């Protein structure tokens, strides 16, 4: 049964993290982090570098094992949910080798691998899914191009298409707004709204506060633990942001100093 269809059950929890602790060789990176995200929500995960933001992200993806607490995706264990193709990961542009000899089509097809047999031979349904995903991100014309010949925004769209082709119900995006052009940003905004309507849950890890305000229904503020969590308008107070960033403006345009402006909007 495709978990996306459970979205009609109003309060179906896509992501549940309960008092998650992670430590690396005795050093605590994250403690007592709890989070519940319903189907059809967009949530920003905000914190400084080294505040445990990426650790939390990795724990949700099953890359690090929590020393305490538990995580459920669609009500089941993370590795189980991954086997059901429920979790899609959209990497940072910086984390990919763009001189790799693959075409845009090849990259999007990788989203289908998990559902294929051991030989990974695409079926007609796989090709259709890739085609539609490329159509949705407006990259159909560039599908034969090597991935490295694309612009930053187009690259981001290619990886979004991979997540779409995967038909995952939970999308994890790592710094999706860095190096993205205006058309791509508009397209992402539209896509995110469509995803939300379709009952997907999107978690965005970022330090870009402006985009969090524009895109996210919910915000989680992280500094070694979950400092505040709730609807964006309620959580984005200058006091909370000060706590998150320890009084240091994360960047001159959108730091705590200017945070009042967009809270009052």
């Amino acid at each position, binding site marked *: 049964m495709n978990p996306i269809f459970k979205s009609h059950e109003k309060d179906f929890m896509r992501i549940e993290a309960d008092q998650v602790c992670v430590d690396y060789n005795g050093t605590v990176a994250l403690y007592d982090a709890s989070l519940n995200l319903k189907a059809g929500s967009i949530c920003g995960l905000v914190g400084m570098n080294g505040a445990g933001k990426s650790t939390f992200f990795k724990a949700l993806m099953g890359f690090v094992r929590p020393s305490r607490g538990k995580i459920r995706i669609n009500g089941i264990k993370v590795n189980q949910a991954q086997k*059901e193709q429920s979790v899609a990961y959209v990497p940072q542009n910086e984390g990919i080798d763009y001189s790799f*000899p693959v075409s845009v089509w090849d990259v999007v097809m990788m989203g289908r691998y998990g559902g294929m047999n051991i030989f990974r031979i695409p079926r007609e349904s796989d090709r259709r899914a890739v085609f539609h995903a490329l159509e949705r991100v407006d990259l159909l014309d560039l599908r034969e191009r090597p991935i490295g010949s694309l612009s930053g925004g187009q690259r981001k769209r290619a990886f979004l298409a991979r997540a779409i082709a995967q038909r995952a119900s939970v999308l994890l995006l790592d710094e999706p707004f860095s190096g993205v052009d205006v058309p791509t940003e508009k397209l992402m905004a539209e896509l995110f709204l469509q995803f939300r309507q379709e009952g997907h849950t999107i978690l965005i890890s970022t330090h870009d506060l402006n985009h969090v305000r524009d895109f996210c229904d919910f915000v989680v503020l992280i500094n070694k633990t979950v400092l505040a969590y709730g609807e964006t308008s309620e959580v984005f107070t200058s006091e909370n942001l000060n706590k998150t960033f320890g009084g240091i403006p994360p960047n001159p345009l959108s730091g705590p100093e200017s945070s009042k402006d967009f809270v009052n909007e």
Partner: protein
Amino acid sequence: MSELLISITPLDWLLDPLTHDFMRRALMVSALVGGVCGLLSCYMTLKGWALMGDAVSHAVMPGVVVAYALGLPFSLGAFVFGVGSVALIGFIKQKSRIKEDTVIGLVFTGFFALGIVLVSKIKSNIDLMQILFGSPLGISQADVKQTLIISFVVIFILLLFRKDLMLYCFDAKHARSIGINTGILHYLLLTLLSLSAVVGLQTVGIILVVAMLITPGATAYLLTDRFDRMTILAVVSSSFSSALGVYISYWSDIETGGSIVLVQTLIFLIAFLFAPKYGIFKNQSLINND
């Protein structure tokens, strides 16, 4: 001497060596081994494992010596020491503050030195020069059989898992997030590397085997933007240069391993200079029209 060379037609040059049993064997083994190493070299260059390839290929040396001395298949010894060296590299890296490239250099030279000491100490009919420089012209029937078996095992596994391994090289995080066990793929690739190093040392020897595991992949990488085409180009160029190297070695009486690797390097240089899109003298119109 020069009169003799002039009197040889190109056809003779190709066919004459085939009248000898040992040359037919050498050509077949070299081309096959070239193909195997060429196929794997794509993954090595894309994953950035050139140094790892160098390390593993040197580290198999003591394994080969011990296996010979105990009368076991040399592939077994090489496999144990190849994977063992990587495990040791990982262990030292994790438990100390030393940087990875230093650890790699430290471990593989240590293993290599152990191999050399063992050769000089264990009284047997192992020929150090044969291990170091390879000798496809003098390969025994038993070694041919073993090389054939290992080669086909490596080719079979690489073809079976080629998409998983490609995905692992390109985006390991995505592979994990769709439920693929990347830990197994990591050790699978290392195992294939050890096995390829073993068959590679048959033809070019331990010192040069890393060239077989890097150069064809690097050459192919300059020629295409498609993974499947890259593997085909790497296999073809590697098999071709191995066979040509053996021919040149036969006619001009030079070391076979060196000859094979020199041909490979030459092909790389041609690609480096004249590759249509990524060469130094690239075709500008090709790029603009893309």
